[in-house]
Each structure stands twice: as structure tokens, then as C-alpha cells.
């Protein structure tokens, strides 16, 4: 179909980029989700007023372009604090907090949706706060939050295309490097887009399916 100068070495190069995309996404989503859970639970415990400072900070991560967050974090860590930290680490840190900012809202919504009466019942059986959280709130809130969480994780994967600014060669950057050498922009871009699509589409559909199934009972 296409005549291309793309070699198998180039494909491996692209695959490495894709691997980096997945790696950065996985790390950030894991850390971000943990943070999101901690913040979400804390918010429920402290109430919106005591939690306002954290809400404010998290809100910043949702109100400033990710590109600027990355550039600023990079400049701050290196130029101001003079810490010797790799670009990959900075990328993961920023993306983690970015994820956490959105995840906190999702967790809060999930916990909020567990009826207070159900939690009372659990406590009345002698369960501790932690047991209530672990055996009642977690499973119930997960059902409510999981579809949005999948959406968030996929969003982070797509947004991770921006970490090139801190010298992380992920999929889109690898594609650009190959475009530089091979000068086949359309073909290479299509490969790159297809890769994102193949990962994102089925998972997004799965999220929609879960949402439908769980909203029925």
C-alpha cells in the first residue's frame, strides 16, 4: 500500500517510545490514584473547609496547561532547587499530581455515593472506621468510580504525549524523530495515532460497559 523506508529497527524504536508512553502512564496513574484516594478520603474526613488549601492546590493542576506544569516543574526542580533529577522523574511527578487532582474528585464522588445509612450499619456491627472503609465503602465506591477512573487513566495516557518537553522520548516524540529522518509524516503519524487508538478505544468501551451494567442494579 505504502512505499516506505521504515525499517524494523525503526519499528523497534517506535515500540520503545510506546513502551515509554505506557511506562510513564502506568507510574503516574498508580501514584496519582493512591494520592487521589488519600486526598479523597481525607477530604471526606476533614470536610471541605479544612481541606480547602489542598483543594486549591489540586485545582491549579486542573487549571494550568500540562505543558506549562511540566516546564515550570522542570525549571523549578532544576534551576531553583538545583536538584539533579531526570526528566523522566519530573514527568512522572507532574503527571502523578495531575492525575491525583482529577482522581480526588472521582474518589470523593464515589465515597459520597455510598449511603450514610449503609456505613452506619457497618459501624453498628462493631467494624472500625478502617474496616468500614475496606469492606463496605471501597467495594461500593469502586463500582461508582471505576468507569470515570478508566476515563482518567486513558486521559493521562493521551496527555503523556506532552512529556517530550522534559526530554522524555515517548511515542509521539519518537514519531517526530522518525519523521525527521524519513520524511513520511502522514504514514508515521497514522501509525502513531493507531497505536493510541488501539489502547484507548477498547478500554474506553469497557468503561462505558461497566457504567451501564453497574448503573442498572
Amino acid at each position, binding site marked *: 500500500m505504502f512505499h516506505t523506508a521504515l525499517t524494523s529497527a525503526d519499528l523497534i524504536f517506535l515500540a520503545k517510545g510506546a513502551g515509554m508512553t505506557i511506562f510513564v502512564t502506568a507510574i503516574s496513574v498508580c501514584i496519582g490514584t493512591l494520592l487521589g484516594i488519600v486526598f479523597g478520603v481525607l477530604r471526606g474526613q476533614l470536610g471541605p473547609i479544612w481541606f480547602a488549601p489542598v483543594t486549591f492546590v489540586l485545582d491549579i493542576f486542573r*487549571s494550568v*496547561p500540562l505543558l*506549562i506544569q511540566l516546564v515550570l516543574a522542570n*525549571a523549578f526542580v532544576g534551576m531553583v532547587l538545583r536538584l539533579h533529577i531526570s526528566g523522566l522523574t519530573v514527568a512522572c511527578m507532574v503527571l502523578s499530581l495531575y492525575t491525583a487532582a482529577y482522581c480526588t474528585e472521582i474518589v470523593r464522588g464515589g465515597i459520597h455515593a455510598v449511603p450514610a445509612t449503609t456505613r452506619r450499619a457497618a459501624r453498628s456491627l462493631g467494624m472500625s472506621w478502617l474496616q468500614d472503609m475496606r469492606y463496605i465503602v471501597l467495594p461500593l465506591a469502586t463500582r461508582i468510580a471505576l468507569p470515570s477512573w478508566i476515563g482518567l487513566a486513558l486521559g493521562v495516557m493521551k496527555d503523556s504525549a506532552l512529556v517530550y518537553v522534559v526530554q522524555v522520548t515517548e511515542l509521539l516524540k519518537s514519531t517526530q524523530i522518525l519523521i525527521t529522518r524519513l520524511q513520511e509524516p*502522514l504514514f508515521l503519524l497514522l501509525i502513531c495515532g493507531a497505536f493510541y487508538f488501539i489502547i484507548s478505544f477498547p478500554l474506553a468501551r469497557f468503561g462505558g460497559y461497566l457504567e451501564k451494567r453497574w448503573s442498572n442494579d
Partner: protein
Amino acid sequence: MFGYTFQWNQALARLPKMLDGAAVTMEVAVLSMLIGIALAILLTLLRLSGSRPLKAIATTWVEIARNTPALFQIYMAHFGVASFGIHFSPFTSLLIGITFNNAGYLAENFRGALKAIPDTQTRAGRSLGMSQLQAFRYIILPQMLRIAFLPMTNQMVWAVLMTSLGVTVGMNTDLYGVTQDLNALTFRTFELFAIAAVIFYVITKIITLGARLIASRLFRY
């Protein structure tokens, strides 16, 4: 503790230029939202239509918009389509990219909103003698826009944030582009981008507050 001397004066002196950039950013975001909403309504209608090919086109659009990075979509709008000899200026490429993205996400929101409107509403309209299109225009659409108002506000915020991706297609008049240009001249990276961040933050707050105000005005039922 900092091994870095902040030089805010230098950066602040460039504030007027950055505010001009913010105006361009808003221009792109607002245009992309207006066109995006119109397209999303069209996509929603196509998805409701009986025609299979039209449905397929709309679904493809929505799924690509939602399942690939915005940066990819913008890059594609500039360098990708140029392979067919179609040239867009950076401004247009950015606008096309963001609009494509907006339309996809909004169409999905609209579909969810539609599900929440009982079909008896259309029936009531039709039995008053309205055509299918009139019933949609006067009865379904206003209710749909109300339900989808919050997602639309969020999308508007994202549209503003997405303008920062314009630099990849040679855009240098928007807020991010201006900031990057100034950074090349002075290397005051931290100060300049911090100011840009504050401007972006303020813009998004104005949008969310404004949206709340509009909602309270518009939706009195």
C-alpha cells in the same frame, strides 16, 4: 536555599505582550467552542439518523477525537493533512485541531444528555404539529444544552488549556507561544512560565464563574 535569583521585573515587563497572547488564546478557545458545539449538535443528529454511513462517520469522528491525544490531532491538522497539499496557517491548524477534539467530546456529552430527556417530550411536540427538526430545535435541544452545560464548561476550560499545544504547529501569538518566544530571548524560564500559569489560572476561574452566572440566568426552571 535557592541557588537561583528570581528576576521578576524582567518578566513582568513583558506582561502586556503576554496579555495580548491571552487574548489570542481566548479567541481560539471561544471560536473552537462555538464551532465545536455546532458540529457536536450535527454529529448528534447524524448519530440519531437512520442512515448507516452517516452514523459511521459521526461515530468515527467521536471515537478518534476521544481516543487519541489532542497534540496528535493538532499536529495532524498541520503536518498530516499538508501531505495532501492542504495548507492551514498555525492559527487555523490549532483551531481545527481543538474544534475537532471539542466536537467529539461534546457529541458524547450530548448523547448522554439526550438519554435523560424522555421521548414523550418529542411526542408532545410532534402532536402539536411540529416537524422532527422543529421538535428537536425547540424542545429537545434547549433541554439537552442545559443538562450538558457543566460538561460544556469543562470542555471550554480544556479548550483554553489545549491552545498551549499550538507551538507544535508554529503558533507564536497565543499565550504559550508568546511566553516561549520571550523565554528564548531572556531565558527567564521560571518567571515567565509562572506568570503564564497565573494568567491561565485566572482565565479558567473566570470561565467557571462566568458559566455559573450564565447558568443561573439562563436556566431558571
